């Protein structure tokens, strides 16, 4: 168990900048998820922590040791790879005990540890098999076992679930979280799947183009995205973002635009007036409620698509070139027909605002 700290860590490749001066503080026992679209630099960051990539600039600390020039085998980290990287010529027992044998742990002790880990991962009956004779889920568990058997300072996981089918993925997700809580080992977990990040991470760092855009606990990331990218990356469907401008109508400020006609919350008026003529108003699909036939105020437009998922309805509403998605309870299903004009009310405390120029959140109130 240890903390880990990244200071201005940068990775240049001859033709591009993969990781751009990132800072990250990982607390002891924390489950930190690095999430972002493919090519955002999250795997490179993880590989730099592991020691598989050199660091172009900056420092990486594991515990109180600067590890920039320490080889992977002396960093005391364990890694789970996307393709599991099990040694194909060794059986499960040998795979699990590989790191212990390299450290010349006594045979009897290895045997005890292997059986303990195999027991906790339901692998006891498979110890004699080679990786080629295992199913995807079993290989995944061997890979996990190989990481936990050493009790390393850090777990590093590089999209370990992406080769599993959807059902197994959800199961293994909770299995990994359970193991991590139980062992209390500091973990850095890389994924491109935001729902995986939200369900597993105790803290999430969203990356794009080699930069960390926001690091926060899942709930804050969801409700207070720091910029347009995070707002749209986190959550399915993503946060609705509508362009609007502020106008004084009969003395009180209103936000007007395609799909938008709402009174400007008082606490935000002043700050928004400073932010420029046009800005983005954002809200989550579940933050609006149906108001009946288009009342002309609130959010509204014509129903363009209805997706009935059984437990909820996702309704796409559009006006002009703008559209947004509303998440509604299934009880309103009969009231929504394609092409109908429909209006929504919103609790103004749920509104978020973003600058159109730099795409950063505008803090109001």
């Amino acid at each position, binding site marked *: 168990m240890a903390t880990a700290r990244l200071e201005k860590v940068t990775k240049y490749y001859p033709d591009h900048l993969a990781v751009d001066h990132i800072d990250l503080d990982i607390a002891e026992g924390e489950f930190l998820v690095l999430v972002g679209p493919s090519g955002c630099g999250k795997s490179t960051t993880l590989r730099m922590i592991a020691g598989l990539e050199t660091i172009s600039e900056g420092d990486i600390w594991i515990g109180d040791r600067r590890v920039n020039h320490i080889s*992977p085998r002396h960093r005391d980290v364990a890694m789970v790879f996307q393709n599991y990287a099990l040694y194909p010529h060794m059986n499960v027992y040998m795979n699990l005990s590989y790191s212990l044998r390299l450290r010349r742990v006594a045979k009897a002790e290895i045997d005890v540890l292997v059986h303990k880990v195999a027991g906790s991962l339901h692998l006891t009956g498979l110890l004699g098999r080679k990786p080629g004779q295992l199913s995807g889920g079993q290989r995944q568990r061997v890979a996990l076992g190989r990481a936990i058997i050493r009790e390393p300072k850090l777990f590093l996981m590089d999209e370990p679930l992406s080769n599993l089918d959807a059902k197994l993925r959800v199961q293994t997700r909770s299995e990994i979280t359970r193991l991590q809580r139980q062992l209390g080992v500091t973990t850095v977990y890389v994924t491109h799947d935001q729902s995986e990040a939200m369900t597993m991470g105790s803290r999430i760092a969203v990356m794009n183009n080699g930069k960390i855009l926001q690091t926060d606990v899942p709930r804050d990331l969801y409700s207070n995205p720091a910029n347009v990218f995070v707002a749209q990356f986190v959550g399915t469907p993503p946060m609705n973002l509508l362009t609007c401008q502020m106008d004084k109508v009969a003395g009180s400020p209103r936000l007007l635009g395609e799909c938008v006609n709402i009174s400007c919350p008082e606490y935000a008026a002043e700050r928004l007036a400073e932010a420029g003529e046009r800005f983005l108003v954002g809200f989550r699909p579940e933050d609006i409620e149906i108001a009946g036939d288009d009342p002309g105020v609130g959010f509204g437009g014509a129903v363009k698509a209805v997706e009935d998922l059984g437990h909820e309805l996702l309704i796409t509403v559009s006006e002009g070139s703008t559209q947004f998605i509303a998440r509604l309870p299934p009880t309103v299903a009969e009231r929504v027909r394609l092409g109908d004009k429909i209006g929504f009310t919103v609790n103004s405390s749920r509104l978020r605002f973003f600058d159109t120029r730099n795409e950063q959140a505008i803090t109001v109130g």
Partner: protein
Amino acid sequence: MTDSPRSISPDTVLPRIFKAAGRLTAAATIVFLCSVGVFPFYWMFVTSIRPQTEIFEFPPQILPSADSVFEPYLRLFDETDLGSWLLNSAGVSVGTAFFACLFGAMAAYILSRFRFRGREASQVVLLMTQMFPAILLALPMFVVFSRLGLLDSLFGLSLAYLAFLVPVAALLLKAFFDAIPVELEEASMIDGASRIGTLFRITLPLSLPGLASTFLFCFIISWDEFLFARMFIRQPDNWTVSLGLASFSGEFVTPWDQVMAAATIITLPAAVIFLALQRYLVRGLTSGGVKG
């Protein structure tokens, strides 16, 4: 009616006939091709045990003679130095194949795993070494070897073979190393092994099929080689099997029964090694060739 005959109509019978005919044709083709390959070996063996008087009979007898004799085999070991030629060849071939694999593996590993300036170029150079006719290189090498005092020694001959075979081995093995996922080595290094440790614990065991086929390839090339052996080796003590075999053809008489007997014996070691490594060879050739 309990067993009514099944209706036989051209619709059901014809496709079956075609299918059977197709298989038969395929089998016949395979048998024909195999016999083309095997016949020279058969002829070699049959001739070796034919009494001398019957060897040049016309029309030739395909079947072994009724008066087959195995006496040429015994005479070979008594009257010639076949035993020492075999030993010489075995030493040269095994040594060459071993060191070609060793040095080839080192070069292949570097080419496969490290990115450095000149990587592409060095691969092209390795390939280019194979583009020259042997005789073109044999002459300058003869001069160099004579200056170095390496002529007429089996060590020198091995060295000459290595000059040709290390590049081939490196290119062959690179394909095998390329097929082994880098993640396996990375996992091993994170697990606590050094790069060299990883090479011996993970990479080499996984490339055994590749090593086996490379070894075999180098072994057979050096076992068969004649041109360099002829030029570099003088003393009969140092003759390899190919030189020994050539020495049978005399100015006036060539004892064909003995030539064929010697050829049979010389073919055997290569065949035995081939059969022993065949399991790896087949797997190796496919697993290295089909990448990804």
